[in-house]
């Protein structure tokens, strides 16, 4: 039903969303933990920086990432000097862009979840002989699990939906940076409405199916019946 290059766009999109979400969870967990627990005055600055992608046009992020990742940018230049290639117009570059772009969607649910857990359970665990790492994995993670679910789904879904950043740094290379949102744009440009419909409908259904369990579980959680 899907044309071959549409199928490959779907594959690239899912791969991008998966890798991005994974990296965001690894980066976001310590960042959200720090934001939830610190009394440092820098917290507000970090809070604001993390939230920037929420308000900036994606093209702004894309523009600066393009400069940074390109052959003359600090990161791309470094990569070239190390014998690699610049990251602009590569899958890796797309991952970096997506990580920046979706950061608040992962950090904020985690931060909220860690904050709502409070300090008491950790104090209890400490008096029951659990060290800091032990406490984190046996208390923080399970008590913040609804936050993890929300973070995962929002991070994944938001990455699938991104357009502006990809447009700036993606370069539309099939199998590498040609993702669904760009494919739809291309189809519309080419007046291939049937194929645009197919992909757009697919995205709507996919996103809805991901969001539904999150809201269902959050509702149960708020009603105090999480198990």
């Amino acid at each position, binding site marked *: 039903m899907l044309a071959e290059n549409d199928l490959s766009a779907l594959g690239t999109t899912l791969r991008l969303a998966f890798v991005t979400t994974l990296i965001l969870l690894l980066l976001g967990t310590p960042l959200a933990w720090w934001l939830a627990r610190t009394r440092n005055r820098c917290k507000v600055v970090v809070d604001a920086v993390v939230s920037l992608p929420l308000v900036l046009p994606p093209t702004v992020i894309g523009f600066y990432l393009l400069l940074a990742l390109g052959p003359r940018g600090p990161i791309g230049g470094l990569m070239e000097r190390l014998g690699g290639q610049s990251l602009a117009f590569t899958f890796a570059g797309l991952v970096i862009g997506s990580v920046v772009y979706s950061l608040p969607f992962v950090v904020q649910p985690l931060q909220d979840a860690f904050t709502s857990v409070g300090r008491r*359970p950790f104090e209890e665990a400490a008096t029951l002989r659990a060290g800091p790492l032990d406490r984190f994995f046996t208390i923080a993670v*399970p008590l913040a699990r609804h936050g993890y679910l929300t973070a995962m789904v929002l991070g994944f879904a938001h990455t699938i939906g991104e357009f502006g950043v990809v447009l700036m740094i993606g370069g539309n290379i099939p199998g590498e940076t040609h993702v669904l949102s760009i494919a739809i744009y291309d189809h519309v440009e080419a007046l291939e409405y049937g194929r645009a419909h197919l992909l757009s409908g697919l995205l709507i259904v996919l996103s809805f199916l991901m969001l539904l369990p999150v809201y269902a579980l959050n509702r149960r959680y708020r009603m105090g019946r999480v198990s």
Partner: protein
Amino acid sequence: MIEARIQLNRGSFSLDAKLSVPGRGVTALFGPSGSGKTTLLRAIAGLDRHADAYLKVGDTVWQDRGTFVPPHRRPLGYVFQEGSLFAHCSVIKNLEYGFKRIPHGSRRISLDRAVELFELSPLLDRRPTDLSGGEMRRVAIARALLTSPRLLLMDEPLSGLDLERKGTIMRILERLRDELDIPMLFVSHLPDEVAQLADHLIYIRNGTISAEGASEDIFSRLDLPLAHEPDAGVMIRTIAAARDEEYQLSRLEFDGGIFMVARDAGPIGRPVRIRIPARDVSLTLSRHSDTSILNVLPATVEEIVEGASAQVMVRLRVGGSLLLARITSKSAMALDLQPGKGVFAQVKSVALLDET
């Protein structure tokens, strides 16, 4: 033996406390709300790190300049106020949390024994959200105990419970004290709780320790504000000695005589703590035989201190025990009370602290 010295200044509240907790029996950190009791307890557990603190347990220094043993390395049990539990774990998982982290060789109490002692078997698969306040408290104490602590710390273990639930927890705590020989330090602001459970009192007021010593002594000291509270009174340890079935009276023996009480004091030989409010003790110079009061004891006046609203507080010696009597200044004048004088103390009410 725990020696602690903690100083801190937090805005309007300052704490400067130096205390020693015996390594045996039950010690109460006792005083009005806001006097710094919980702050001290948390400092002992290492939950808050205060710059100016020194803490030594046995031969080990837990905190000093440059030394801080983190809470998870302190062999203590801690029961938080309201007995909070891990919301994401069932009762049994809560109990196992600390137990699993104790090496086999150091375990002094088994899971089964704790479940039996705290009557938890019907609750094991429940979630904390499905427990009543009293049940939560029982689980929280059992969970702390299962770490086989060298000292069990409890923050207001009975607060917010109704009388019946209080009684249940109290009975369990008494069994811990008498059967397991685990030293306990608990925080409370209620004289009855303290009198029932504690052997040793640390009396704290406005962030400083104003007295410490055996419970009986602290309650009868006239130089402490404690003796001038409306519900001031002494605690006396007695033994159930006999039961008069005809009149439904129990005979309690203590160091200084006997009390007859119209309550069932339990089997003969059982230790029973009683509390005698100062307002329920009156004094006469001769023994009245034509009185409805059952307990009349020969006593010697030891000390008299002026109290509020034209009243005086009199400390009396009855054999090896002490009594407090609150009477009016006018009566004290009329009876010509002075230290050394022999009187008869009429005790109108005796509260049994250890109900059967």
